[in-house]
């Protein structure tokens, strides 16, 4: 059994504009000691999903189950959940300045958390533990800096202090919600290294929520790609980057500039969908370059790709790679034919040479 198993999670928020369906039937699981990345654009529901399982989405309508070590977190009362949160499950958020209380010393905040979860420990012992934790995450002069206020820390140090706090009770699961988004690349590299080292040392499982595919490539074992509240594709890291199936995953990867390669980027056209009235059937169909009739009529379930049990994709394109390539080529050819027809019209207009037309067709086929 996996450490965390989330099944058929639905989360919606009543708002004046209507019911916002932030998460619509999400399944995922985290193996003990592994890293699961959840990627997706703003509004894909990635943060809401994890906040819900830790009881941080008040006022939301929630259904489904989230079994942590066998117990359903969604059915726990507040007291039980509080013991799990901060104890068994540690959390780091994007903005470390607003997650630390500005009025209290960093060390005091860590001590408070430790004593909240472990009533046996004296203040002195808890403080010693706080110093150890700050050392562990690489805060220089931890004995002295433990008495600093959050504003005296730099951004990277604050995020490391947050990690220290999240790791205080030796959690089995660490939820990191965009932990490095607000940081410079140099500091980001430091923070990611701290997380990797801690995972190796303590065997903590990590859920990493991010929109940065570079961070995903760096740190994850498994990846869930979310769009409009649903999982579009689940795969291990290599499958995701080198053998992805879903056109949305492909779109995300093509949008990122690759260092050293300067071709024109291929953005995903259009805008992210409304969560009040999500597109029917496949939510990605209005922006998908390979869309065909079935995509607008039936919601694709997560189907195994290339017979791999762990790699699943919610897309109607064929799941074995040979016929998938064929189908994509056919759809691309259809677009090329349309482009050729347009080119032929233009050619008729100004009577260009045939060789030039061939080039145009080839170009249209390639794009």
């Amino acid at each position: 059994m996996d450490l965390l198993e989330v099944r058929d999670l639905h989360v919606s928020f009543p708002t004046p504009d209507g019911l916002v369906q932030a998460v619509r039937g999400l399944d995922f699981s985290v193996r003990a000691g592994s890293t699961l990345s959840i990627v997706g654009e703003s509004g894909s529901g990635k943060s809401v999903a994890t906040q819900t399982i830790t009881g941080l989405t008040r006022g939301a309508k929630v259904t489904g189950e989230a079994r942590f070590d066998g117990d359903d977190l969604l059915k726990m009362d507040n007291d039980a959940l509080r013991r799990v949160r901060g104890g068994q499950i540690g959390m780091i958020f994007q903005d470390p300045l607003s997650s630390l209380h500005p009025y209290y010393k960093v060390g005091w905040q860590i001590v408070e958390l430790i004593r909240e979860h472990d009533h046996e420990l004296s203040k002195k012992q808890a403080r010693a533990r706080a110093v150890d934790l700050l050392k562990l995450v690489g805060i220089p002069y931890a004995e002295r800096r433990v008495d600093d206020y959050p504003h005296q820390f730099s951004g990277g140090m604050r995020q490391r202090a947050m990690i220290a706090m999240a790791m205080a009770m030796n959690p089995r699961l660490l939820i990191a919600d965009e932990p490095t988004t607000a940081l410079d690349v140099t500091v980001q590299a430091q923070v990611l290294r701290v997380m990797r080292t801690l995972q190796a040392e303590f065997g903590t499982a990590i859920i990493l929520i991010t929109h940065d595919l570079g961070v995903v490539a760096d740190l994850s074992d498994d990846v869930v790609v979310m769009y409009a509240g649903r999982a579009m594709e689940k795969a291990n890291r290599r499958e995701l980057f080198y053998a992805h199936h879903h056109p949305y995953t492909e779109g995300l990867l093509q949008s990122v500039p690759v260092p050293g390669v300067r071709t024109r980027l291929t953005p995903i056209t259009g805008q992210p969908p409304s969560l009040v009235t999500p597109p029917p059937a496949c939510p990605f169909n209005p922006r998908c370059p390979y869309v065909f009739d079935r995509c607008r009529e039936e919601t694709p379930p997560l189907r195994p790709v290339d017979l791999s049990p762990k790699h699943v994709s919610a897309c109607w394109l064929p799941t074995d790679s040979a016929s998938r390539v064929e189908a994509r080529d056919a759809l691309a050819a259809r677009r090329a034919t349309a482009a050729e027809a347009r080119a032929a019209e233009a050619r008729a207009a100004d009577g260009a040479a045939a060789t030039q037309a061939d080039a145009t067709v080839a170009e249209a086929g390639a794009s």
Partner: protein
Amino acid sequence: MTADVSEVPATRPVPSGEVLLRARDVVKHFPVGGRSLRGSARDVVHAVDGVSLDIRRGETVGLVGETGCGKSTLARCLTRLYDLTSGTVEFEGQDISTLSRRQMRPFRRNMQMIFQDPYGSLNPRRRVGSIIGEPFAVHGLADGADRKRQVQELMELVGLNPEHYNRFPAEFSGGQRQRIGVARALALRPKLIVCDEPVSALDVSIQAQIINLLSDLQSEFNLTYLFIAHDLSVVQQVSNRVVVMYLGAVAEVAPADPLYDTPRHPYTAALLSAAPIADPDQAEARERVVLIGDPPSPVSPPSGCRFHPRCPKAQPDCAVEIPQLLPRQGDGAEHVAACHHPLADGERLPTGGAVVATVVGPEAEPDRPVEPGAGSGEPSGPVTFEEQP
């Protein structure tokens, strides 16, 4: 008729055109704190400390560096949104560094800015048509039906629906708002557009849309961009030349490809190696240099080379002598670095295993400048890097 908009040259040649904007020894200091009891001088933040830079017509100059390195301040000095503490800025050969606001007016038409925050940079209570039309109003150009027509043309140009002329910014998504910002910057057909982190706040798929839009507009209107970003892969994607700043000074300037292939300044190399790569094989193959600590305070920047306290290659002379921006290791005049001990082709920085090493060696305080071993010829070595136990 071959509409090959999807084709861009594999390498972007550096345009050899005339210099559009020339900055010499630009300095910008901000006073901090109150006066002391005796009324002596206040401390100053050395936000920009002697930056010289040429921007040629039609090129895109990328400007990168960590938070607080002064890149935005420099941009605001170049466009005279800030007054300079000292130094000169010439636009099309004319010194604009001491012009009054009124005298600056005609130049403002030619230099526009696009800002990072698509939410904060648009007035939420004004309609999109009036936001994009504002430059016309300020400069007393086109009005009435003519202005509306021009604004709608601009909206079309940047990929917005002209029928949304009367909507409010809140009715648009982040990417669309950034398009509004682009349309506003473009309204008066400026010669120079300063893009201050234009895509940092956007989702990756939308980022790519805006980057493509900016590059299309550049070829259509022969625009010149100063493109500020902390994302190095984005900067390489768009720039002809890249300027790397560290703590208020320029560390390295080079055409984009040489900068990424053969960085000379250790800071550039460290910055490049820290950037995440969206490719598991490449990410695993490369060695990452993890810089220790944070940039020192710009109130009292380190002596000599400002990077020496964090530099894995630092030698005693680095703390004493300020390195000049010169071609290093036989580079052409286009590739200059301010470093006494530049990296050779293919040389790698020592990779530190050091973040967790502070657990064993808490005495290493990376924020403190390294004092060179006094008198002894031996380099005291970069204390910031320690072997992992």
